[in-house]
Every structure is written in structure tokens, then in C-alpha cells.
């Protein structure tokens, strides 16, 4: 569903190598957790995948479509929620969702069918006609997730999706991610919450200083990291400077 092959990205005219020769594949039906310390290159990798940045080298495909060569086709297959969801403050939640549905060309009956359970699950029904400016951080996050899922993307990409969500919303959200994978879609998300990654992800990748230092299931990582049992122990060992 997602492949990155030899992807690199530098800032400051090559002075800072944010992503260094990254190769990774996420198959359909998988929840992939992307971990790393602050500044490791997680957000840069995600921005490269969704087309907000251009790689210096390498190729990225989403559902078999090259992100650089056919960006519009690739974007059509993607749903993205950034770490801080800056949404249109002056639109109502419903206007924003309708805007997204119009752009993706979703028929009216279908958008209604998809929205009803999502708005109910995220407890947004009472606020959906308010302008986004009046929303709390958590509500914005939930609206951004709703918009991303509304398009029924093959690959859902989330940057720190749990930030700002209350425990119930986190639980609902995990359920949502699992449901998407069971439907043959894939989820790729970055997080600092190792507990979530450990319990939710089929596989985990750890990035450090732009390089992928480990990737695999929990059992594979545990074997690799000298028998450490928790993801936290593995993470700390692999990212120790």
C-alpha cells in the first residue's frame, strides 16, 4: 500500500539530513506505527509521503501510484491528519466536511452514510454547525480525522493522532483504525505514545537521525534488541545517542 525506496530529504542546503535513504513498505491491512525521538524525521517523512514536501532522492508510491509522478492520483488515495490540525476557522464543521466531499466527488447519499457514524462516534454531532474557530483542540483533531476518513482513502496517514483526544475518543479512534485495516486499507501513524504503538500496531518502525534503525513486529524487535520486552526499552536502546 505504501512503499518508500531510498528516500532522502535535506534542509539547509544539505546541511541537515532529515531523512536519510529510507526504505520501507506497508502492506494493505496493516497498522504501521512510526516512532522516533523529537527531530528524528517522522514528520518530514510523513510530509514527503503526502506530497507536502519533495524528496531529494528516492521514490514513494501509494497504492501503486508514484507520489511525484502522479500527485493528484496519489492524493486521491490518501487521507492525512497533521500533528496540529489547522483547519478553516471561519467554516462550520459541516461546511468543511462538505467541501472535502465535493473535492473528492463523493455522492450526497454516500457522504451522509459515512458521516453519521463518524460524527456520532466522535461526539461532534451537536457542534457540527458551529464554526471551527469555536472548537477545542480535541474537537479540531476529531474533525480532521473525520474529514480524512470521509474520503475512504486506501492509506490513512496520521501525525501524532492521539494528541488532544480524550480517552474515549482515543479508544474509538483505535477501533476505527482497526476497522479500516480489516477492510483491506492501511494506516500509517507516528506517535510518542509507545503504549499505543505496542498494543495497536501490527508492525513498528523506529527512525533516528533520519535513518530507519529498526522495523518489524514487537516480537521481531524484541529479539533484535537483546531480549528487551517492552517497546519503551527497545526504543530507548535503539535511539540512545
Amino acid at each position, binding site marked *: 500500500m505504501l512503499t518508500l525506496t531510498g528516500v532522502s530529504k535535506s*534542509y539547509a542546503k544539505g546541511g541537515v539530513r532529515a531523512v536519510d535513504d529510507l526504505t520501507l513498505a506497508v502492506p494493505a491491512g496493516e497498522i504501521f506505527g512510526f516512532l522516533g525521538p523529537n527531530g528524528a524525521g517522522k514528520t518530514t517523512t510523513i*510530509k514527503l509521503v*503526502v*506530497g*507536502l*514536501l*519533495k524528496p531529494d532522492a528516492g521514490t514513494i508510491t501509494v497504492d501503486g501510484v508514484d507520489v511525484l509522478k502522479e500527485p*493528484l*492520483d496519489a*492524493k*486521491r488515495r*490518501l487521507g*492525512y491528519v*497533521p500533528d496540529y490540525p*489547522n*483547519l*478553516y*476557522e*471561519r*467554516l*462550520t464543521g*459541516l*461546511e468543511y466536511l*462538505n*467541501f472535502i*466531499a*465535493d*473535492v*473528492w*466527488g*463523493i*455522492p*450526497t447519499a454516500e*457522504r*451522509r452514510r459515512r*458521516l*453519521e457514524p463518524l*460524527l*456520532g462516534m466522535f461526539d461532534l*454531532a*451537536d*457542534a*457540527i*454547525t*458551529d*464554526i471551527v474557530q*469555536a*472548537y*477545542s483542540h480535541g474537537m479540531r483533531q476529531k474533525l480532521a480525522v473525520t474529514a480524512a476518513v470521509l474520503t475512504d482513502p486506501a492509506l490513512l496517514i496520521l501525525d501524532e493522532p492521539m494528541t488532544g483526544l480524550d480517552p474515549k475518543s482515543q479508544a474509538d479512534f483505535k477501533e476505527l483504525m482497526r476497522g479500516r485495516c480489516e477492510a483491506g486499507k492501511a494506516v500509517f501513524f507516528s506517535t510518542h505514545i509507545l503504549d499505543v504503538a505496542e498494543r495497536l500496531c501490527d508492525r513498528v518502525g523506529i527512525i533516528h537521525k533520519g535513518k530507519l534503525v529498526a522495523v518489524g513486529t514487537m516480537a521481531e524487535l524484541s529479539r533484535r534488541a537483546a531480549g528487551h520486552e517492552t517497546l519503551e526499552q527497545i526504543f530507548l536502546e535503539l535511539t540512545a545517542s
Partner: protein
Amino acid sequence: MRALWAAVKLTLNTTYGFSAAKYRYLVKRQHLWELPLICLGIGSVAALFGAGAFFVAQGFVLAGLQFGQPELALTAALMATSLLVFFTGIMAISSVFFFADDLETLVALPLRPGAIATAKFGAVLAGEYIPMLLLFLPAAVAYSWHVGGGASFWVAAVLVGLLAPVLPLALATALAVLLMRAINRRHRDLYFILGTLPLVGVMLYVQMSITTIPPHQLEGFLLQLAAGRLDLVATLGRAYPPAVWATRAMAGGAPLAGWAGLAGVILSALGAAALAAVTSDRLLLGGLIGSREVMRRRGPSLGNVLSAGLGKGSQIGALFWREWRTFIRTPVWALNGLIGAVLLPLMMVFPAFQRGSGLGAILAQVRTGGPATFIATGVAAAMGAFVGSLNTTAGSALSREGRQLWISQMLPVAPVVQVQAKLLHALVTSGLCTLPALIMFAVLVNPPWLNIVAAGLVALAVAMAANVAGLLLDLWRPYLGWNNPEQATKQNLNVIVPMPVVGLLGFGLVSLTMALLRRGWGFDAVLAMVCGASAVPVVVLYGVALRLAPALYDRLTARGR
């Protein structure tokens, strides 16, 4: 005190982007070519306004000299500046208090609310010295040039120049804080409109007042002036005494009048600043934080809401409505863009409704048809084009997306379509802006309908050519890092590009008209030719915009914007 100074420095920095500019131009040494262009742009606009203000002030000084009251120019300039500072101050203070993104950061610091208000006040005050420089300085120069005054005059002028904006801005701050406390943050659009309406009212009132001295009173008024029995400075200053005190501080007059005037200026500025500080200290925190609660309520069922709110539209339609809604629902953008379209034509035609007005006689002449109607058509087209290009929709189209640009970049929509939607928005807005001018043309001049159509087409074509030029520049160098919406338009040099383009195209079309008339073309034929010619630049620029759109959007991705 140290904390207050740190807050002032921080606010000045975030408001005017000193650190960002220093990093960009001095540390990274990027886009250095912009510096001379920015200096040239600001310099030419300042020179234009400054020269205009100087000639007007000189007129006041020379007229005042005839009646022994040349200081009239200083009083008038101070009153105009104070009025401008007060009303723009309400908007600017509202913007930095109510709409800024850095408030949560500042409120969380161990600072008194009054210190935060003082820091914000300082940042706005720094900006208000620009109208002081453009209006008051030329008046002081004109007075000094014709009357003299020496070093003491200039010392007093500098003090007055520094202190004069404090009083109106402090009053604006106190008013803004009171309104903020009274109006829930959820309804801050209403707040902004309430703050802006007086500006519109006062501008219309001033315009009417200036043009409404009944003819039978004018003679007596002039006789009194000539006899020196009427103190025009005091008469003008009755509405705003600090302007008279400041005038006395600079121009002296009776013994000790200068010192008394200076004391009046200083004390009134200090008093108003204290009032603003106390009001802010007591009410600002409540206004900022206390009214942020989001109300939960039960409304119609979700099914009903979705039935009413969901409907399928096209991609370009969705993009257009996004542009329209975000623009029209951000009062600082909408009012800034649309208010001139209504005000300028209204202010021009007010005299026509007044008794004894010269404009009434001119209109009667214009209605007879022939060359006068033809010229009036040109004036209507020029006015329409000018107000149609003022609305900032295109020149800030990408900048206004600010931190939400990621959404546009994520959409599976070609850059060409995104540009088309932005231009469609600019077309609709400019069309609406030209309407008041055209309606007034139709009502006052009563021309043939063909002239109205021609004026409308030329106005819209010229305005849109200017808009496309503004959009191209905004796509090239958008200003995305703004903290409050006002910055996206008012601190964005891209929005001023359409105005000189209108001037340039206007000059070209007038030249064409003159050339055709000299060759003996009839008025209708000239109108048709000018309509056709005015379409050429917009078609060419539109083609350029569509051709460059993919590269310009691609550039944003490459640069990581």
C-alpha cells in the same frame, strides 16, 4: 519593568517580523533582491502621499495667512491624524487583542494583564507613527517653510508628533477592551462590525460637513474670518481640544500659551494612557479568557442537520465557496476589501444631493448627452476599476490560506483549478465592488444602457487584469506566517500591486481613447474599441497565470511551505 520591556520587545518583533526579516536577509541572505524593491515601493508611496499632504497643508497655511491664522494647517493635520489613529486604532487594537494567535502564550506568562496590553499597545503605537509622518510632518514642514518657527518649533513638533497618537490610541484601547469584555468571543465578528461602523459614519459625516456650508452662511463666515473676529483654530478645536493645545505648543501665540499647550498635550496623553492601562488591567483577562467557553447545546437531530447541510457540488464550486466564506466571514478582510467600494463613490456624489452644490450643475450638463456623457462613462469606468482592484482578494489569495495551506496542497485538485477558483472569487468580489459606482453612474447621469454596460465591462476587465497580476505575485511570494488575519492583508505588500496596474492600464486606455478621438472616431465606436482593448491584458495575464500555476504551486512544495 524588565518583564514589561521583554513583552514589548517580543510583541514588536512578532507584529513587525524583525527577527524573521533579520534571519531571512542577514543570516540566510535569501531574497536580497526584495530589499531595494520594498524600499522603492514604500518610498514611492510615502513620497506620493507626503507630497500630496504637503501641498494640501501648504494650501491651508497660505489661506490661513490671509486671515492671520496659518497655524490652522497644524490643527487640521493633528485633528485628521487623531481621528485616523482613533478609528484605525480600534481595528488594530481589536486585531492584536482579539484575533492574535499569540495571546495564549502571553497570558500564560507571569505578566499583569496591563503589561500585556501595554506591550500590544506599544506595537500598535509604533505603526500609528506612519500616519503621523505622512500627515503631520508635511503640515509642520509647510508651516515652518512659510511662517518660520526655528528650533523651538521643531523641538515642540517632535514632542507633539511623539505624543499626539497616544491619546486617540489610548481611548481606542479602552473602548476596544470594554467592547471585548461585553461581547462574547464567539461573537467577535459582531464586535468588529460594531467597532467599524462608527468609522463609516464619521467618514460620511466629515465628508458631508465639509461640503455643507449653506451659501447664505458662507459670506458671513468669510467676512468674520477676514475681520479676524473668528478664531478658526479654536472653532475647529472645540471638537478635539488636544489639537488646539498641540498647535499652541508649536505655534506659541499668547505668552505662556506654548508651555501651557505642551503641558496639555503631555498630561492628556499620560491621562489617557493611564485610563487604558487601568481598563486593560481590570478587564482584559476577563475579555480574553472568561468568554472563551464553548457552549454545548441540543439542536436539531444529526439527520436533519445533514439533510439540510449536505449537497453535492463541483470541485471549482467547492473551492470558490471556501474562498468566499472564509473571506466574507473574516470581518477585517471583508470590511477592508469592500468598504472602499461603497464609501468612495458615496463620498464623491454626496455633494450632488446638497443645495447649491457645483456638482449638481455639472450633472445637469452631463445628462444632456454628447461628450459630457462620454467623459462621465470614462470616469465611472475608472472609478469602478479602482474600487474593483481595492478589495485585496487576489493579491492576498494564497497568503490568506496561511497555516491552512496544507489543506490545499493535500487536495487532489490541479493547481490550475485552484487558481481558477481564486480568480472566480476575485471576479465576483470585484464585480460586487464595481456595482455601487455603476449604480451611481446610472442614477445620477442617466446615460444610455450601452454606456453603463461599457463602463462596467472596462471596469471589470481592468480590475481583473490588476487582480491576476496581484495573484501571480502572491503565488510567487505568499505571506503565510501571519498571526492574525489583519497581517495577511495589511502587512502584505502583494495587495498593493493591483493599484499601480490599474493606473498603468488606465493610462493606456485613456491614451487609446484620445488617439481614436483625434482620428475622428465616434463616441460609440471608441467605447466599443476601448472595451475590446481592455480585455486584452486580462486575457493575456489569465493565460500566464494558468500556465505558471503548476510551477508556482510546485515551488511551494519544493520549499516546504
